[in-house]
């Protein structure tokens, strides 16, 4: 590309009239094929495009600094393992040894025998109620049988 053509392209670049391909071509010309490096127009174009590159670098650098250092990842994994382990051990311990606790009017009872006694007392009440209902059903059936017997 000769100098007038290059000037024309630079002017169009500054006027934002260039296409993407033309910008690529200009960048390539400025980077590799500069015929007149002392030309102020070309120098200005180089400075603007160089500035563009310079401005991108700090962004790349800052992205690097943003990514967490390796010790942070290790710490995060360690915390995850500790939390998981403590949850698991709690559940496993609870499943193996189990819980045996009662509250009577807000007062905690952890004595196993006392708690089991309360548990069986509840079940006994259910048994009594169930027996009463069964007896009641049996009585009703007997009454029906008696009436049917009288009818026969």
């Amino acid at each position, binding site marked *: 590309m000769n100098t007038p053509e290059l000037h024309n392209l630079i002017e169009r670049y500054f006027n934002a009239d260039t296409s993407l391909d033309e910008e690529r071509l200009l960048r390539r010309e400025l980077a590799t094929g500069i015929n007149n490096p002392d030309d102020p127009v070309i120098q200005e174009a180089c400075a603007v495009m160089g500035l563009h590159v310079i401005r991108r670098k700090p962004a790349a650098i800052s992205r690097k600094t943003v990514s967490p250092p390796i010790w942070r990842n290790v710490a995060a994994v360690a915390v995850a393992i500790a939390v998981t382990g403590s949850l698991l051990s709690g559940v496993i311990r*609870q499943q193996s040894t*189990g819980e045996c*606790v009662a509250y009577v009017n807000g007062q905690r009872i952890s004595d196993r025998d006392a708690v089991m006694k309360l548990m069986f007392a509840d079940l006994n009440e*259910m048994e009594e109620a*169930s027996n009463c209902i069964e007896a009641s059903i049996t009585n009703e059936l007997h009454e029906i049988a008696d009436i049917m017997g009288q009818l026969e």
Partner: protein
Amino acid sequence: MPQSRNPDNMKPLIPTLLLTLVLVPAARAQEGMAIEPFFDDGIKHRPGAEVTAVSVTGKQLQNSNLSIYRSVSVTGDPSLTQDMERAVTRDGAKAESREVSLKDGHLYFGFYTLIPQGKEYRYMFYLNSTLTGGSKTTLIYMQGKAEPYEIRNMIKR
């Protein structure tokens, strides 16, 4: 500040969160049921009512072939009894089988075989003895490998 937004920081925590989601429901087996609030801590310290709550899990229940036993008995709180009856009726409607006795239009006794959770059967008992001159209402939730006939034998032994 931007470091906290980095999704890489969250990666190690994801398995922990997932595990928590799996384990917490296991610890609260009756979760999602209408009777769940009656086994909460708040009910144990309810003012103006005599409440007895029992929670037994693990090896203490090995002989019964159960993994979870929870019960709550309430005396002197008719509104709580009504709430319990409503909750039991609601959960009982979804039960696989039920043995129910009513008195004066209210639920007096109920034995419900609920839909199993995984490989474990689940049962619910309810007894409102205030309807027959008593003073107590009892709700029991049980879970384990014990089959319905074993539960029947257990309360009849």
